[in-house]
């Protein structure tokens, strides 16, 4: 689930470590653990880590079909630490099967590079025989599709990475 992995290269790079440590200090982080394949950077400060409940969860961008509009955190919480500023993810508002296309023959709802508005339907998630159209709920550009067609997804699963406008 953690998406903050080093951009490859030499994990022993002191400058990067210093930057991370300064980040930790100024942001009161108790631990940083970065890994990618065999690469790993883990830094710990002081004693206990924050309880998960207090960590920012991977939360859904509010969607019409969201089961929990009330408890949906603000969109900003879907910004990912290591991403360039202004990028968010659209997360699944439900458990189900992801469909990138309206039907097997037709082309995908959206493709990488495509501009989207809040109303743009980005995919369908099928659950209990119901096909739920998922609107983007934000406007910008598709940077990446994070799941494969017909892949099972659960609540909060990141589906698309978006470069938001402005």
């Amino acid at each position, binding site marked *: 689930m953690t998406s903050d992995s080093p951009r490859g290269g030499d994990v022993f790079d002191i400058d990067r470590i210093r930057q991370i440590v300064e980040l930790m200090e100024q942001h009161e982080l108790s631990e940083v653990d970065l890994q990618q394949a065999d690469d790993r950077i883990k830094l710990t400060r002081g004693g206990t880590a924050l309880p998960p409940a207090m960590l920012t969860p991977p939360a859904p961008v509010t969607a019409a079909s969201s*089961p929990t509009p009330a408890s949906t955190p603000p969109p900003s919480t879907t910004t990912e630490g290591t991403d360039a500023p202004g990028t968010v993810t659209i997360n699944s508002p439900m458990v*189900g099967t992801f469909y990138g296309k309206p039907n097997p023959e037709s082309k995908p709802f959206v493709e990488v590079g495509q501009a989207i508005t809040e109303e743009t339907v980005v995919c369908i998630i099928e659950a209990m025989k119901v096909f739920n159209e998922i609107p983007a709920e934000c406007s910008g550009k598709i940077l990446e599709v994070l799941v494969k067609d017909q892949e099972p997804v*659960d*609540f909060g699963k990141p589906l698309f990475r978006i470069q938001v406008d402005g």
Partner: protein
Amino acid sequence: MFQRVLIANRGEIALRVIRACRELGIESVAVFSEADRDSMHVKLANQAFCVGTARGADSYLKIDQIIAAAEVAGVDAIHPGYGFLAENAQFNEVCRSSGFEFIGPSPTAMEKLGDKNTARSMAIAQDVPVVPGSDGLIADFDRAESVASEIGFPVLIKATAGGGGKGMRVAESPEVLKSQLEAARNEALAAFGNGGVYLEKFVERPRHIEVQVIADSHGNVCHLFERDCSVQRRHQKLVEEAPSPDLPDDARKAICDAAVRMIAGADYVGAGTVEFIVDKDYRFYFIEVNARIQVEHPVSEMITGVDLIQEQIRVAAGLPLSFEQSSLVPQGVAIECRINAEDPTKNFQPCPGKITSMFAPGGLGVRFDSHATTGYTVPPYYDSMIGKLIVHRPTREMAIATMKRALDELQVEGISTSVAFHHWILNNEEFLSGSVDTKYVDRAYQGQS
């Protein structure tokens, strides 16, 4: 037998069901809220699906999300555990209509037994003694007055849809009957959206004795003897034991047989508990049936050697029970202490938070069922139980000695637990003599350590 089972629950009971599945060679599928992402039941299951945000209403109670997970995972059956959706007849129905076996009784049996008033009538029909009272709901005050004078004061006013003490009132005398009746009605209406109440004789100093029963679809109904759960605080069980420390053999036989009659007459398949109150003369009265597995089922497992969760799964799959009544010979004494993230010196106020260090007790006769471990954070969203400490020894005296040392050994740092209460009760004269009634703790315990 099933290939794959989804567990619609969390915490220690989710772990308990995973254990039974593994031993039966069944794959387990967990569901979890965002607050439980790092929880042990998620780690130990073969698959796990996040079904919503932290609050139970947004995750573990989301029927559509749980059914969707069952479909995506392709399971054969769903185990509801206890609490959450375990006694929700609608969920039961949806599971079956979606093509998943529900590991528990039919929705009909669940509904009938779930309604106290219907259950009472069924008990009477099966010649199971009930507390004298209004056979049916109390329409108005006049009716209440006549019934009360007939069975004699004090009388207990109970909500027909009630549970956990809500919508329950005692009227000591005719003067307070009206006010208590209205109080009960309003509380019931608020809590259950159903203001129906009934009257019964108020049994003083009652002990809570329940019988573990399980039935298969081949007509076999067996009991696993009784549990004494009289150590309660505000109707919440804290310590349970099997067998009861004070029950003559003839009374034991009578109460167990009554429980079997009750279940046999309810067209029931699965595990269930028939609850009774017992007075000082060992007269017992039917209270209710819990149509699910219960928190305290391990004490019955310990004295019989039967794995109740495995049997639940077997009978749900249409297999017969793996044992016969005659093969069950209770061995020794088992006691369970519920370890809650609560501070007994502060009126049992819940204290969620991170467990900075934990050591689980071991040794002869000790069983510890817990999803907690060093580094685990007890979330504030769910019930505060972090584990069940169970001991099993040849005698009650030995069992108590083993429980005391296991409680000393259990180390949980970072949060408060109910261990201090358990030390108090295990050293309490009333408890040692086996004469604790269900109100005793409320009368005698004020946070002593």
